[in-house]
Structure formats: structure tokens, C-alpha cells
């Protein structure tokens, strides 16, 4: 009996991490493959650049993870980046203190997320529809500010953007990366060690059961969207610092990239299953595909989309296999 229990636990651990193992394995294969094929690919800087180029995506993918874990979704993240970049750029142009701008922008993100959460929870609207409307609203609102690109020449922003942190000889990273990694670490902590995090998993597993258990479902669901709004505002700030410009068409379709990163990182879209570290690897994997295509030089950039789509397909089928296996095991028991 006890032997059986131990066995079961072992198998369970395996299936829980199998998607992440697969992603990490794929990442390593791609990195090694790239290093063999292209000279100059195997360097710490290329690896570091993956983080530098995708810092904003990591942050918004973490926010997306929280919503997906409660079996919801946030489609407004890409548009929020554009909106935040526009607010930041226009406020800086008007000579507002940069630190004040950062605070304003983060508050805007929090309010935006909370409103979406309230609409979804209190009025029982479908997260798809609400965040879709949020996406429209954010994109449209950024055009209301201006239709043209606004460049940022603020001293503090550009010095943050240019600041290089040496991590090894000949290799550097940026402040953005540090911030995004901090977000990842705090997300792991939130999900694994706090009551809030475990409530999220419970809601994702079964909202009714969570409610019957007396968990604060309504509060948690609203907070999840608040967190996602905060993450997308922070991601927008990182993106603005990275590109030093505001434009209403920034990050068109990034919400899908974030969702793809979550799926590749082993977050089940039915909710309640997955780890916060997963999206990080998801982003890195899609990032390395992009660098591979860049190093190749002859392939067009649309191959990235096709490759990411195919990856998505493979991982979704993998997820299905895991779920079906678990169901069969459940039936057997």
C-alpha cells in the first residue's frame, strides 16, 4: 500500500514537470544546434541578449500566467504596452518628473486591471470579452493621445536604457532584466508559498469547489486581474525604456506571444496547473528561435511566426497527452 503511494507520487511529480522538462530540453537543443551551425552564436552575450530583448515579454507572461491559472485570460496586455508607452512618452514630453511618470503609469495599470477584474467577477462576464474590450480600449486610447510616434529623450530614461551591468567578462545585462527576474522570483514565491497563490490554483481546479471550501474566490479573481494589469504596465515600462519611444501600434499581437509562452512553459489553459518558472522558459525558447532566424540571415522574419505556431501545436498536443494519461489513471483507480 505504502509502496503504491510512493510510486504514485513519483509518477505525479514526473507528469507535473514533464512540460517544463520538454521546454528546457528544447531550449538546450536549439542553443546547441545554433552554436554548431553559426559561429558566434555560442557566447554568453547571445544568451544574455535573449533576456535583454524579451524582458518585457517575461513580465507580461507572468501576469498572463496568473490569469490563466484561474482559467481566465487577459488579452489586453499587448495593447496595455502601447498605452503605457504612449502615456510615458507624452508625459515626459510635457516635462513631468520621470519617477512620477513611472508611478502614474503603474497606477493606471493597476486600475485598468482591477476594472477588468470587477467586470469579470461581479457581472459574471466572459474574461475573453472583457479583456478584448480592454484591448480595444487601450489601443484606441493610445491613439487618442497621439497617432504618431513620440520619441523619448529624457535623461533618466535614456540612461536607464543605456546602463549596462557587467555579469562576466565581455558580457553585460540591463536593468530591465534584473526587474523582470525579480518579477519572476516574486511570482514563484506568490504562487508557491502564499495563501493567495494556493487559492489561485484552487480556483483554476474548480471554482465551485473553491467557493464551497470558503476560499475568497471573488477577491482573488479580481486581484489576479489587478496583478496582470500591474504586470502589463510594468512590462510596458520596460518596453518603453528598451525602445525609448511611444507608439500606438507597439506590440501588436503580443498578447498571443504571451499566451504562447505560457502554453510552451507548461501552463494548462484549462487552469489550475503549471509553474511560474514555465513562462520564462517559454519566452526564452521563442526568443532563441528568433535569434536563430536572425543568425541565419536568409530566412524571413515570418518564419518566426510559423515556427512558434508549430511549437505551440506540439506542446498543446503534449498537454493533451498528459491530461488524457492522468484521466486514464484516475479511471483505473
Amino acid at each position, binding site marked *: 500500500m505504502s509502496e503504491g503511494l510512493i510510486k504514485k507520487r513519483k509518477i505525479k511529480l514526473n507528469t507535473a514537470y514533464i512540460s517544463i522538462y520538454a521546454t528546457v530540453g528544447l531550449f538546450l537543443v536549439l542553443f546547441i544546434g545554433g552554436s554548431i551551425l553559426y559561429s558566434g552564436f555560442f557566447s554568453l552575450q547571445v544568451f544574455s541578449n535573449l533576456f535583454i530583448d524579451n524582458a518585457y515579454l517575461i513580465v507580461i507572461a507572468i501576469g498572463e500566467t496568473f490569469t490563466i491559472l484561474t482559467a481566465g485570460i487577459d488579452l489586453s496586455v499587448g495593447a496595455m504596452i502601447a498605452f503605457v508607452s504612449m502615456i510615458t512618452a507624452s508625459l515626459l514630453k510635457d516635462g513631468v518628473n520621470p519617477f512620477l511618470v513611472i508611478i502614474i503609469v503603474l497606477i493606471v495599470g493597476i486600475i485598468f486591471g482591477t476594472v477588468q477584474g470587477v467586470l469579470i467577477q461581479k457581472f459574471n462576464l466572459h474574461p475573453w470579452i472583457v479583456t478584448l474590450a480592454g484591448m480595444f480600449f487601450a489601443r484606441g486610447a493610445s491613439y487618442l493621445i497621439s497617432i504618431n510616434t513620440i520619441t523619448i529623450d529624457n535623461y533618466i530614461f535614456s540612461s536607464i536604457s543605456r546602463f549596462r551591468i557587467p555579469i562576466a567578462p565581455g558580457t553585460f545585462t540591463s536593468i530591465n532584466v534584473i526587474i523582470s527576474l525579480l518579477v519572476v522570483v516574486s511570482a514563484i514565491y506568490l504562487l508557491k508559498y502564499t495563501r493567495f497563490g494556493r487559492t489561485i490554483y484552487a480556483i483554476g481546479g474548480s471554482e465551485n469547489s473553491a467557493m464551497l471550501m470558503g476560499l475568497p474566490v471573488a477577491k482573488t479573481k479580481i486581484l489576479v486581474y489587478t496583478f496582470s494589469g500591474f504586470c502589463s504596465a510594468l512590462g510596458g515600462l520596460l518596453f518603453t525604456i528598451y525602445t525609448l519611444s511611444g507608439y500606438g501600434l507597439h506590440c501588436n499581437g503580443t498578447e498571443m506571444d504571451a499566451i504562447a509562452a505560457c502554453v510552451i512553459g507548461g501552463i494548462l489553459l484549462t487552469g489550475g496547473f503549471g509553474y511560474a518558472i514555465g513562462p520564462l522558459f517559454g519566452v526564452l525558447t521563442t526568443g532563441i528561435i528568433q535569434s536563430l532566424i536572425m543568425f541565419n540571415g536568409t530566412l524571413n522574419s*515570418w518564419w518566426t511566426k510559423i515556427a512558434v505556431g508549430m511549437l505551440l501545436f506540439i506542446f498543446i498536443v503534449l498537454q493533451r497527452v498528459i491530461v488524457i494519461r492522468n484521466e486514464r489513471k484516475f479511471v483505473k483507480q
Partner: protein
Amino acid sequence: MQREVNKVEEKNENSILKRFYKSSIFWPLVCLILLLIFNLIINPGFLNIKIKSGHLFGDLIDILNHSVPLMLISLGMTIVIATQGIDISVGSIIAISACVSATILASSGSVIMAIIAGIVVGVICGMWNGMLVSFIGVQPMVGTLILYIVGRGVAQLITGGQILTFTNKSFIFIGTGYIVVPFAVYIAIACVLLIYFIMRKTALGLFVESIGVNSTASRYSGINAKKIIFSLYVICGILAGIAGIIICSNIKSADANNAGLWMELDAILATVIGGTSMNGGRFYLGGTVVGALFIQTLTTTVYSMGVAPEVILVVKALVVIAVCLLQSPNFRRIFIKKSKAVGSNYKVEKVAKV
């Protein structure tokens, strides 16, 4: 509000009005009419329809013409949403179908071949989605997400990143031609009637609703849900393919990046405004048609007001939230509670007077 309704009910004993008020198409239609009246106030010549060389011209005809692609994909979206599904890849299918038919047209010059190719693309894309959703059992949103991402890449691959233009007159006729009213309108009418016939005059519509309400129960009652869901995605793909042909013929070019961009969102909006719930079950084809017309009218209104076209996104967002709130039972409960309170006060007053 409630009081007014009561009055209407008291006054009109004939049940037609009552039935019309209760029918699902009532609110979308009211919204559409309000929008048209709003347009009439801004632009008094809005409803004018002129006859030039046997063809009808006017803002209304324009709206009708431009709403055709949206109407087609909204119909597909409606029947898919009725099974608790969703197809977010329709925009990408439009892009692929537009690019394929333009490429075939450029290489072979045959209009019929181009049209068939566009529809075949729709069938293949629909089969891919349907296979993922029904046979592999992936969630609809995720399953169609793949094609959403890959689709535009494939479309660009087909055209080599170029915008293909063409001058074939008979192909352009599909999107711009006139036989009293624009030719595309006939296509839309044909498709609407066909879908209506399939869904309401055969058992398929009932099957779809039963799958949407409870797929397990429908399986126990002997409905092959997998096959039906698969065929619905194929129908949705075909409609998107036709929409792709119309769009590319209307602008005389195939643009892999912009053909059908944001269309999937508009289609979802049209469906929701039409009264079909995102949770599946009952679906309303008439409501969807009105919803599509509503969205196109909204777009035209914003354009004609001289506001920057990008701002329409904000308007759409607010309208959608408002419509969804009106449909939400929770919101209605709060609303009705208040009006009921008012209503009972009214009765009390009446009694007191007596």
C-alpha cells in the same frame, strides 16, 4: 423602465408586439435603429438613396456592402460559439484565402480557379481547426490560436511578403460590382439563407444547441458531437474563405498583413451583440446579422464624424462592455431590483389614490 413595459403590455393586447419585444432580436435592432437615428441627426442626408444608371447609391448601401465580409464570418463564429467553442483564426484564414486566390489569379488568370482555391483554403483551415478541437480535444481558443499565429506567416510566405495587386475585371466584380445593389450583398444573402436553412430547417441546429448546453448529455442521447463540431469549424472556415475572396477583390489586392486584421474580434462582438451567449447553447443567426450591421454602421458613423479612425476602437470597447452588461443577469438583477422598487411604489401610490 419596467413601468413603461407594463404600460406597453397593457395597451397592446395583440401579442405580436409583445412577442417581438421578448424576441432576442429586439435589443440589437433597437441599438441599430438608435444608431441610424443618431446618424440622421448628424447628417440629414444619411438615409437618402439615389439611383444612378440603374444602381442604388447611398450611405445605407455602402454600409450594407462593407458589412458583407463581417457578416459572413460572424455567422460562422455564431455557430461555433453555440457549441461553447470559438474560432479566433478567421482573420488569418481571410488573409491566407485572399493571398492564395490572388496568387492563383495572377498565375493562371482563371477566375473560377481563384474562387475555388480561396474556398478550398477555407475548407483546409477549417478542417485543421476542427481536427484539433473535436478529435484531439484541445480547447477551441488554444486550438485556433495556432492558426491565428501561423496563418499570417503562411500568407506572407505565399505572396513572398509582397502586396499582390491584380486587374482582372471579372474577379474585381465580386467585391465592387453592382446589379442594382452591390454584388457582394447577394453573396451575403445567399450565405445567410443557406446557413439559416441548414441550422433551422434540419436537425443540425438542434444538435448544435444541445452540444452547447451539455455535451455529455447530448452524447448520451446519441449525437456524434465530434463530427458535428468538426463540420461546424469547416463551415466557419469556408465562410472565412469566401470573406477573404470578397475583401481581396474589393481592394483589388491581397495584403497578408492587413487583410482581415481584427476581424475575428469584430465577429465575436457581432455575435455577442446579436444575443448569442459566449457560454454556448442558444444561438441567433438573425441577431448576428443585425450585430454585424450594427458594427459596420458604428464604424461608418465614426468615419463620417471625421474622428480619427483609430479612435473607433475606444467606441467599440465601450459599446461592447455596455451591451454585455445589459445581457449580464447580475447587472440586470441590480437594475430590475431598483426599477421594481420604483414600480411597487407606483402601485402603492395608485392604491392610496383609490
